[in-house]
């Protein structure tokens, strides 16, 4: 057993874990954050995507012990105070989800994209999300959802200071 301390969605967690425990299982089973899904055994599907120190990672392919001392954001950390983040709102507005199973990973990957590229083209969105598989939507509306979020975030940011931007991306930006 190994002792780890991980910051997840802003809260510190210290736990004894087996060295072989996957980060995805740690989040799901230990912390009961079940929004992070598992869709494959081979790092292909991206359903398990979380932000680790601001970068999108596939949490099925990282051990919990590797997250020691790091900051993790899961889908549950996107909305703040009951308020949906633009990316979440975009998925709803543009019908970017059907069964919802790929959605947390998609939204997390898209969050990371918008952080480094606030105004991505369709091409850039499709490339950034190509590590995340969706079986329901055919991706058309996922692309639209990300565009919706990009626009909404720009509109929010434009008239005011950058400090009013959405907290989740702000956290990623400071890293």
């Amino acid at each position, binding site marked *: 057993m190994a002792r780890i301390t991980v910051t997840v969605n802003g809260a510190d967690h210290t736990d004894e874990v*087996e060295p*072989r*425990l996957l980060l995805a299982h740690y989040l*799901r089973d230990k912390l*009961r*954050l*079940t*929004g*992070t*899904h*598992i*869709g*494959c*055994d*081979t790092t*292909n*599907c991206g*359903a398990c995507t979380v932000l680790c120190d601001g970068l999108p990672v596939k949490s099925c392919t990282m051990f919990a012990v590797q997250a020691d001392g790091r900051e993790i954001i*899961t*889908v*549950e950390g*996107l*909305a703040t105070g009951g308020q*949906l983040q633009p990316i*979440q*709102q975009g*998925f*709803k*507005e543009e*019908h970017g*989800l*059907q*069964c*919802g*199973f*790929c*959605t*947390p990973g998609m*939204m997390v990957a898209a969050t990371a994209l918008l952080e480094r590229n606030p105004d991505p083209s*369709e091409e850039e*969105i*499709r*490339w950034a*999300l*190509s*590590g*995340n*598989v*969706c*079986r*329901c*939507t*055919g*991706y*058309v*509306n*996922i*692309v639209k959802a990300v565009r919706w979020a990009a626009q909404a975030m720009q509109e929010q940011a434009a008239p005011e200071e950058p400090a009013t931007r959405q907290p989740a991306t702000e956290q990623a930006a400071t890293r």
Partner: protein
Amino acid sequence: MTTTMPGPEIHGLGHSMKRKEDDRFVRGRGTYIEDVVLPRMLHMALLRSPLAHARIASIDPSAAAELPGVVAVVTGADLAAHNLAWMPTLSGDTQAVLATDKVRFQGQEVAAVVAEDPYVARDALELIEVDYEELPAVVDPHAALRPAAPVIRDDKEGQDTNLAYTWEAGDKAAADAAFAQADVVVSLDTHYPRCHPSPMETCGCVADVNAATGKATIYMTSQAPHAHRTLFAMVAGLPEQNIQIKTVDIGGGFGNKVPIYPGYVVATAASLLLDRPVKWIEDRTENLISTGFARDYHMHGELALNRDGRMLGLRVSMVSDQGAFFADAQPSKCRAGLFHIVTGSYDLTAAHVTGRGAYTNKAPGGVAYRCSFRVTEASFLIERLVQNAAYELGIDPAELRRLNFIRPEQFPYQSATGFLYDSGNYPAALQKALDAVGYDELRREQAEGRAQGKLMGIGIASFTEVVGAGPHKDYDIAGIKMFDSAELRVHPTGKAILKIGVQTQGQGHETTFAQIVANELRIPAEDVLVQYGDTDNTPYGLGTYASRSTPTAGAATAVVSRKLLDKGRKIAAHVLECSPDDLEWQSGRFVVKGTPEQAVTIQDVAFAAYTNHPDDLEAGLEGVTYYDPPNMTYPFGTYVVVVDVDPETGVWTVRRAVAVDDCGVRINPMIVEGQLHGGLAEGYGIAAMQLITFDEQGNCIGSNFMDYLLPTSWETPRFETYAMETPSPHHPLGAKGVGESATVGSPAAYVNAVIDALTHLGVRNIDMPVTSAKVWQAIQQASP
């Protein structure tokens, strides 16, 4: 009495209301099967056969049982003691739950470990010792049907070959006569390869059999919870009233979650024996190698035509590869599903179709993967044949279709194989698609490009689907007729709860079905809660697959709403002290004819139903309807795909993908369009990359997402969708099913496009998946 118009938006038919279910999903707060955790819950893992065909000499579970944390190891022998080693399939065959005599495919369930921890359960699998005596594997269905082939199903009395079934439709004599008169016969041999639906969530369950209460609560990934409850009762011998199936949220189904899998049965048996909840979640490899595959049809088609392009007759024979158990999830009379829809959109008055199913050493399944029972294979075959016939006759493929379409005035149309098409306008759909893509201009570009060695192709598919099973006289699952149901209660405050027998897996039932109620009763869709997936709390229904929810339960919802409205009229008359005949229903209000200020809203009526109902009427505003559709519905459309092929590498890329779909009246156009996008992407995946295949020993190739390729956002085409609305004449809302149209129709469009790019080189067929390697090879062979 309030007489104001209802304030909030109603969101009835034709409104692209945002989905009610999305708020929990975008927060990561859905509850999928793996999220279900019960007190004292154990974890189960399954040991699977590494071999495709072998006799089991012995199984020694003792080392596994001794591993700390392991609670039990279950083998076939343990199940046999309870008469549970075998179970019936949905096609009337039997399937091993845990193997006792032989293993018959790689990945077959051999033993189960139940442990306190899922990692420990997996560790223990390695400690189970199984002694296999390997037998020759039969992987080719044609070879399987030869007399000398080793018999796979020696467990079945009287089964001395590998023939699973034979089947026939249409009129042989009529077809032969048509062929005798033909100027031209075009034939095509093609294999619609084995693929797998692969919803993003794999299958699994949490079985909780409580010895104290006798109640078995089974949380499971089920597209058909009520049917599964009945089957559990029959298989396990548990009293049906004590079985409760709960589905929670399902992460995609596409047919994969229709069958009952051994894992569900073993977990339930383990929970029964151990008196603790048992969770079983398969991993992706288990999902791919053992659960319901799709297609795997080897088809031979022949189309007879006049020189001027008039189609005279169709003959089709096929061999289906069923794997080790005939477990197609389909109506029991339909050995080859609805494959006889193979005459497609054409006025083909003579047709004959035969089929044989072969047992092989492969996983069982044959599920309707986003398809209404083998309709996809049929649609693919006819649309490929028509394209090749056009080349043979030197007629433009669009023109040949137009020449032979069933004309709008011919509906209802009786097909040569026994279907009664309800409605359609095929020429209009074709024209709309051709206009959208700019067909004539593309043909000009193609001709010019060919002179410069450019390879560009235009592929058309004008499909007709048959969905919405179904009329009880023709369709049943394991004897249960394929009606569906809706139960509606409007509460005193005017808010409603609708309970349905079908099961969403992402289709958005919580929204669409609320909109149907809203449309009928003018209660805002926001005020209608839709419930499903808990067999104790919903009316009996057959579930969601084969695009049947809207045709059956959607109709039931409209009908039950109308029943309530009839009762509401009597209550309104009582409140307004007039005769029901004096009332007019005006968008949400009963109004006294001629005195518009005298009116009650539907909310007023609901309140009165509980507070002031007439003496001669029961209290409440509640009803249930079991809807048995009079016919299937026949959605249709035309897809046009444009591809550019690199002559040096064979790589093909989709330049345009235009889809015109007519699924009758659209309840929520946004949701319909989303369904079409998904189907178009899956159709692309099947045409381009999704392949489950096997080596000579029966090892599954395509057992994980590195080998079984799924389209990502990068390669998936950017679809352009267009709508038409030809209502179904027999559906209460004029709606047809739609969830599968695009998976059914689009593979032929993609393949036709690639072939069209190469047709001047003499290429007439490339079997799916159309990989760049195959295309390159075809180019090489064509131009030495």
